[in-house]
Structure formats: C-alpha cells, structure tokens
C-alpha cells in the first residue's frame, strides 16, 4: 500500500514538475501531461466535494463558489490546450515564430496552475480536503 502511494506520488510529482525540470520534453507534451494530471486531481477533489455535498455539509453559497472555481479552472485548462494545439500546429507547419506560441503556452500553463490551486485551496478551506 505504501509503495503504491509512493509510486503515485512520484508519478504526480513527475507530471507537475516536468515543465520545470529542464528535461527535454517538448512543450506541447508538457502541456498535455500537466492538463491530464491536473484534471485527475480536480476530478478526485470534486468527487470528495460531491460526497461532502451529499452529506448535507455544504451551503448553496459554498456550492456556488466551488462551481465558479471549477469553471475558472476549466477555462484555464482549455486555454492551455488551445495554446498547445496552436504551438504544435505551427511547429508541424515549419512556421517561424514558434517562440511566441511557446511563450503563450507557458503563460497559459501558469494560469491553469493558479486556477487549479484555487480549487484545491477552496476545498481545503471548507475542510473537504484535510491538511
């Protein structure tokens, strides 16, 4: 059991830090991994939230706040994937100026990380996720 926890933790760590490690993974693959990894995390977090709501512990206002945070994360994730698609398409076409597309992709990833952190912070604040 502990080995599975450690293996998943290491996998998650690799996903979240692959963009910062300096390893030679192309930017669109980093974006894809980051998107997949964070969507698994958000889905797990909202599954916990769903249980919490089902137990009658959440107010409607709290639900509204979480819903907005999820939608903000979703918008940010779509921006990442749109930027990754644009970058990869430009690269495949042999276009010059992929530096600009990569800069946009990096900015989108940073925005999505912040939106993801917002969802998790909220659920921690509501004691759905324990510190």
């Amino acid at each position, binding site marked *: 059991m502990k080995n599975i926890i450690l293996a*998943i933790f290491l*996998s998650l760590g690799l996903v*979240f830090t692959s963009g910062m490690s300096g390893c030679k993974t192309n930017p669109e693959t980093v974006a894809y991994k980051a*998107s997949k990894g964070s969507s698994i995390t958000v889905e*797990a977090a909202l599954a916990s939230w769903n249980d919490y709501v089902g137990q009658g512990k959440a107010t409607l206002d709290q639900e509204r706040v*979480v819903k907005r945070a999820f939608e903000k994360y979703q918008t940010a994730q779509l921006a990442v*994937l*749109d930027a990754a*698609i644009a970058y990869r398409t430009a690269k495949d076409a042999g276009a010059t100026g992929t530096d600009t597309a990569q800069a946009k992709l990096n900015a989108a990833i940073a925005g999505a990380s912040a939106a*993801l952190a917002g969802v998790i912070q909220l659920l921690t604040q509501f004691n759905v996720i324990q510190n």
Partner: protein
Amino acid sequence: MNAALLQLALFAAEKLLVHAPTLFAGFQNLVSKKSVTVEELKAERDRIASQSYKELVPNSKLPPEELDK
C-alpha cells in the same frame, strides 16, 4: 516541487488509492509518454470542454437553472 504542489500530490495520491489499479496504470502511461499528437491534444480539449459541475457533483443541491448554466 514547492510545498503547495507537494500537498496537492499527497492528497491526490491518497484519493487515487481507492482506484489504484486503473488510475495507477493511467499515470504510468502518462508519465512515460514521450510525445503527443494534435489529435490527442484536441481529444483532451474536447473532454475537458464537455465536463460540467453538474456532471462531476451529482449530489449538488443547486437549482436546475444554476446547474445548467
């Protein structure tokens, strides 16, 4: 990895234990992936776009007019 991401990773790991076999295999594939195609990126985009709070939180007590927004 900074402290916030560490906490995030630990939380996700804990939750993933419930579904360890399937999701662990998914993570193994994800981590070992060397490159991604435009089609895979578009498929992931469509998947994220199709998600909704209503679908992910079926126990929601929000009124239908708010859930369907």
